């Protein structure tokens, strides 16, 4: 494998207040290869969104804090940069799109301005040039009447249009890495497909690597080259997409797979995982999945399993497999 | 303590004395000792104050506020003035005499009398002043209320006014500087109470404008020439009037170059005095002790020419039978510890009043009963009219009915409210169960007083005050037929022999015989003694005029009738 574009080592993001310490991200490791799609999957509360925000250093302060780890992007540790240096990376070499296109766009600024300001910031374009490029960008994400859209406000656009505008914004500077945090969750199914296709084509065109964060295994199956499965703030399994889908090793991953409806199989009912994701404020002492794991043994409740490389490139955090 | 107190008395102050506020005289109160220490210097700016905004009309007699009248009185002199002994003395007119039948007055204008632009004042200017006071425009359209000054002149119809520009036949021009005024009836008070106030107006300006248009003309908004010591140079509505010395002033050019009237809230005026931004201002008596500590200020206290009283509606349907007995009112007078009230309300800077004229007045009868505080005597008097102490320790009506009179006071005036509280406590001490009504708007009180002919209005007792004019002429207020008597005193029962005597004495005090000053004094003394004994209202006291002024101001003549002779004042530099 080539030198990875992004290398995350032992990332820990905690929420620290007077009364409690919440380990939202607790020692995460993964890598993203240039031009590839890494899917991060897990239920809500598994720490995947907080991981992505940590990569951008956008963890909501003042309680949220990256306490440990390394995030090496194109050879530099992002966590060691000053806020000013970091802001040169954001939107420029790393772009990000968010789950809620309804709220992620500023309601009082024109779409064109919101895209253009990235270009003005990082490409030092003039306002006029920025607007021209914004129109081009909007067209490239599939707006036929881009000249009008630049002068419209977000509330005048539909949800899918907004998400495409978001993508245009994130892709404006042709970043090396795009972090997409649940980009399709809030959209209709048909629109979801459009958006995913768009991301795919942009990836192919620009060679942008993507971190795709989702709880939707279907999306992962369609998009991802590599997959990281997160649970309770930790990576429980990581491998290529094929490996994960063909041969899931972790009981949690297996359970997730069970719960996918498969059209050509005639199953009586979908499997679901009993129980809920434990609160980050009070994780169990042993394996964090143990309380919900059908296979759990006594030892699972005692000791936290290590992330082991069971097969080449296939890591699992379970002592039973 | 607050500006509201001005509200209460403002109306009363305006009517009886405002006219004379600036150019009246009285018994002299000497200037501060510093006056003669250094030689007089010319120049400088003096700042005086009004507590609230002034009106917009500056043509004499047209002003609707006391403050505008004060400023106007600096710019326009009348034909005669009062000196510090309250005697009529020369001003624009320097010689005057009467015909043997005392009906015609002859006047001669001082040959040096000029307008501030140097033009001489002529009888034509006086005539314009007379025409103006008697014009229909002034009296009817503009609602002017000083036409009465000339209503006794021959040729003035009973309506009190003439068509615009028409001169009454009683006014005659005898030469460029000589004129005469002939009256319908001889009247001893005519000169000091009325004719002194005739004010020459500049014919060459106002003579060209129809009187119906005077109000609101540029000259009315800002009169740029005048005959008084200070001529207005600029007016900022609602806040200031700037006046400069009149070099041609008939009584001598003023030493001070500029006089500024500023509207300054009474809440901050003390600070302006202390910081030197105001040269002279009236202050509250209660602040005297603190203001005496301010190093750059002198304080002057003179008694005022006025009185405050506790009135009773003598015709009240419920308690009139008690109120109308002089013995009851005498008992009240004894029951109230007036020195203590003066001490509490005015820090001692007040004067007790025992009759309709204040002790400071030239005409005051010095042998009046002073009604010293004597609750025992009050109790005895109340017992003597059959008001027994009944259940609960309160006196009843002679017929045994409960006696709980109410005192009505105006809202927004804490001094009046305090006064009421004190009176209540003193009357309660002699077992009179006086109740104080919640304070109400002054206008409402006036309305109730005005429409109280049947005694059915809720008002039973009330507190009011008057400022008086220089001449002690009681007409207008004290005769049983005078409207103000009906409204504010209520001593009007024509069957009461005391009231008949009152009317008779008032009539005699200004008849032909009264041209003899000793006769007039004797009559007025008798009249004062009558009121002192009858107490148609319970005379209380009046607050003294307390003036704080900068130590660099010299030559001011403080009198009960105003601060006289501004042309003689001067400012020392480098204080």
């Amino acid at each position, binding site marked *: 494998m080539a030198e990875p574009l992004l290398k995350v080592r032992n990332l820990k993001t905690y929420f620290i207040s007077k009364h409690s310490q919440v380990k939202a991200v607790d020692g995460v490791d993964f890598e993203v290869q240039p031009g590839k799609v890494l899917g991060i999957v897990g239920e809500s509360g598994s720490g995947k969104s907080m991981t992505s925000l940590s990569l951008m250093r956008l963890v909501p302060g003042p309680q949220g804090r990256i306490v440990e780890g390394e995030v090496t992007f194109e050879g530099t540790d992002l966590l060691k940069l000053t806020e000013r240096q970091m802001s040169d990376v954001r939107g420029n070499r790393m772009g990000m799109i968010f789950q809620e296109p309804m*709220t992620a766009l500023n309601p009082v600024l024109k779409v064109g301005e919101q895209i253009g300001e990235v270009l003005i910031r990082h490409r030092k374009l003039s306002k006029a040039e920025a607007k021209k490029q914004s129109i081009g960008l909007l067209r490239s994400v599939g707006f036929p009447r881009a000249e009008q859209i630049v002068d419209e406000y977000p509330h005048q656009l539909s949800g899918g249009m907004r998400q495409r505008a978001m993508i245009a914004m994130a892709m404006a500077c042709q970043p090396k890495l795009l972090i997409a945090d649940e980009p399709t969750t809030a959209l209709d199914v048909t629109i979801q497909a459009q958006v995913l296709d768009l991301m795919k084509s942009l990836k192919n065109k620009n060679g942008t690597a993507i971190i795709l964060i989702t709880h939707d295994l279907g999306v992962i199956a369609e998009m991802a080259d590599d997959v990281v499965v997160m649970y309770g703030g930790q990576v429980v399994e990581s491998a290529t997409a094929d490996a994960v889908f063909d041969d899931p090793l972790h009981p949690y991953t297996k359970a997730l797979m069970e719960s996918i409806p498969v059209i050509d199989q005639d199953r009586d009912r979908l499997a679901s995982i009993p129980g809920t994701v434990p609160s980050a404020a009070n994780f169990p002492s042993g394996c964090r999945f143990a309380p919900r794991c059908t296979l759990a043994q006594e030892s699972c409740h005692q000791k936290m399993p290590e992330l082991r490389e069971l097969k080449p490139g296939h890591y699992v955090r379970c002592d039973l497999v | 303590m607050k500006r509201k107190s001005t509200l209460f008395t403002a109306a009363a102050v305006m009517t009886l004395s405002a006219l004379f506020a600036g150019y009246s005289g009285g018994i002299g109160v000497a200037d501060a000792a510093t006056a003669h220490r250094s030689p007089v210097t010319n120049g400088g700016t003096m700042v005086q104050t009004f507590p609230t905004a002034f009106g917009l009309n500056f043509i004499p007699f047209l002003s609707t506020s006391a403050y505008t009248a004060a400023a106007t009185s600096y710019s326009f002199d009348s034909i005669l003035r009062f000196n510090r002994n309250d005697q009529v003395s020369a001003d624009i007119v320097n010689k005057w005499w009467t015909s043997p039948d005392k009906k015609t007055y002859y006047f001669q204008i001082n040959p040096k009398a000029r307008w501030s632009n140097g033009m001489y004042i002529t009888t034509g200017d006086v005539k314009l002043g007379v025409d103006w006071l008697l014009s229909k425009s002034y009296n009817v359209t*503009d609602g002017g209320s000083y036409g009465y000054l000339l209503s006794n002149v021959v040729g003035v119809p009973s309506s009190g006014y003439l068509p615009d520009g028409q001169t009454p036949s009683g006014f005659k021009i005898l030469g460029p500087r000589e004129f005469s005024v002939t009256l319908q009836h001889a009247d001893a008070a005519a000169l000091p109470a009325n004719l002194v106030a005739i004010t020459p107006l500049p014919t060459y300006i106002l003579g060209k404008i129809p009187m119906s248009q005077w109000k609101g003309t540029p000259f009315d908004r800002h009169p740029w020439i005048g005959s008084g010591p200070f001529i207005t140079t600029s007016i900022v509505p609602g*806040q200031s009037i700037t006046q400069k010395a009149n070099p041609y002033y008939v009584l001598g050019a003023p030493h001070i170059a500029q006089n500024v009237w500023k509207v300054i809230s009474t809440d901050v005026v003390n600070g*302006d005095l202390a910081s030197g931004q105001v040269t002279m201002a009236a202050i509250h008596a209660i602040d005297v002790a603190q203001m005496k500590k301010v190093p750059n200020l002198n304080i002057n206290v003179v008694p005022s020419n006025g009185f405050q009283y506790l009135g009773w509606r003598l015709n009240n349907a419920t308690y009139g039978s008690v109120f109308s007995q002089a013995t009851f009112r005498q008992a009240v007078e004894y029951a109230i510890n007036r020195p203590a009230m003066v001490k509490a309300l005015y820090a001692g800077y007040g004067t007790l009043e025992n009759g309709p004229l204040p002790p400071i007045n030239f005409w005051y009868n010095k042998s009046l009963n002073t009604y010293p505080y004597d609750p025992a005597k009050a109790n005895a008097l109340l017992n003597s009219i059959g008001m027994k102490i009944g259940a609960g320790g309160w006196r009843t009506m002679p017929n045994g009915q409960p006696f709980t009179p109410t005192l009505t006071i105006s809202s927004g005036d804490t001094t009046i409210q305090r006064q009421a509280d004190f009176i209540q406590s003193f009357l309660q001490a002699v077992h009179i169960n006086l109740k104080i009504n919640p304070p109400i708007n002054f*206008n409402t009180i006036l309305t109730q007083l005005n429409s109280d002919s049947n005694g059915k209005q809720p008002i039973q007792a009330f507190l009011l005050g008057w400022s008086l004019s220089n001449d002690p002429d009681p007409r*207008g*207020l004290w005769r049983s037929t005078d409207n*103000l008597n009906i409204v504010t005193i209520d001593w009007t029962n024509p069957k009461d022999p005391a009231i008949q005597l009152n009317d008779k004495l008032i009539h005699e005090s200004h008849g032909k015989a009264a041209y003899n000053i000793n006769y007039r004094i004797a009559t007025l003394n008798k009249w004062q003694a009558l009121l002192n004994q009858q107490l148609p209202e319970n005379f209380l006291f009046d607050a003294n005029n307390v003036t704080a002024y900068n130590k660099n101001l010299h030559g001011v003549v403080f009198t009960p009738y105003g601060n006289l002779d501004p042309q003689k004042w001067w400012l020392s530099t480098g204080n």
Partner: protein
Amino acid sequence: MTSYVIRRLLGLIPTLFIITVIVFSLMHLMPGNAFQALIGLNPHIKDAAKVIAQRTANAGLNLSWPQQYVNWIVNLLHGNLGTSFEFQEPVTTLIGIALPNTVTLALTAELIILIIGIPVGVFQANRVNKGFDISTSLVAVFLYSVPGFVFALFLIFLFSFTLNWLPSMGTVTAAVPWSGDLGDRIQHLILPATTLALPSVAYYTRLMRANTLQVFFQDYVRTARAKGLRSTRVLFRHVLRNAIIPITTQFGFDIGGLVGGAVILEQIFTWPGMGELTINANLNRDYPVILATTLIFAVMVLLGNLFADILLASMDPRVRYN
């Protein structure tokens, strides 16, 4: 836009109508009028009761009140607000002097409020619960707690009497004509406008702080940061631009309120504005002036509301004119 404003202006008419009708009827339930004081206490008017009746009749006060109201409206449409009973001057003259002064004072105060309130509120939100935030919040509550006239006296004492920096009365220096120069006028404005502004500064600071805090945690602010925008641009273009919207609305609502709030301060600072005129007219039952001042206050408040709506519509593209 224009048609919207016109429609809104027409919409004010019924409200104004009801207000004037209520004031009109209340006034006629009150006993007494200004003539009572003017004439009733003049010793030299022979037949005061008759003169009062005459004046009352001349002023049209003996008509039935619907008739008086109609007369008043007809005169109003001719630009005539009547003649003050007390000053015997056209009400328009009195208001012509008072209104500009009051408006100047209120607008200056608004300016001070915005200039201080917005930055301080944003700064507080930026350092929430830090020393600056807590200390300024305490000061703000203190400013809000102490009645304005107490501040007025304190500021006069400090800046006018002790330091002698600023004048304590009027709108211009006495000797300067009414058209005094701008510097002189500004000097005179500082103390009264500051005093008038102080309680509202406190209120706006609080409001701004709360708004900013709320906006800080909006998704689009995170988006803006994810785009790598500098923190100043995030703050001004994204946070402030949104946080300020409710402030502008409040601002419009407050214009009318500030004019009313100036009543007491105008007396202390001898600011010849609507305050003195209003209080005086009310105490003396000077009906034409009461009606005119009521009308003007109402118009100010309503125009303020309208202004707020227009501002809101121009600042928030989600709001449409309808």
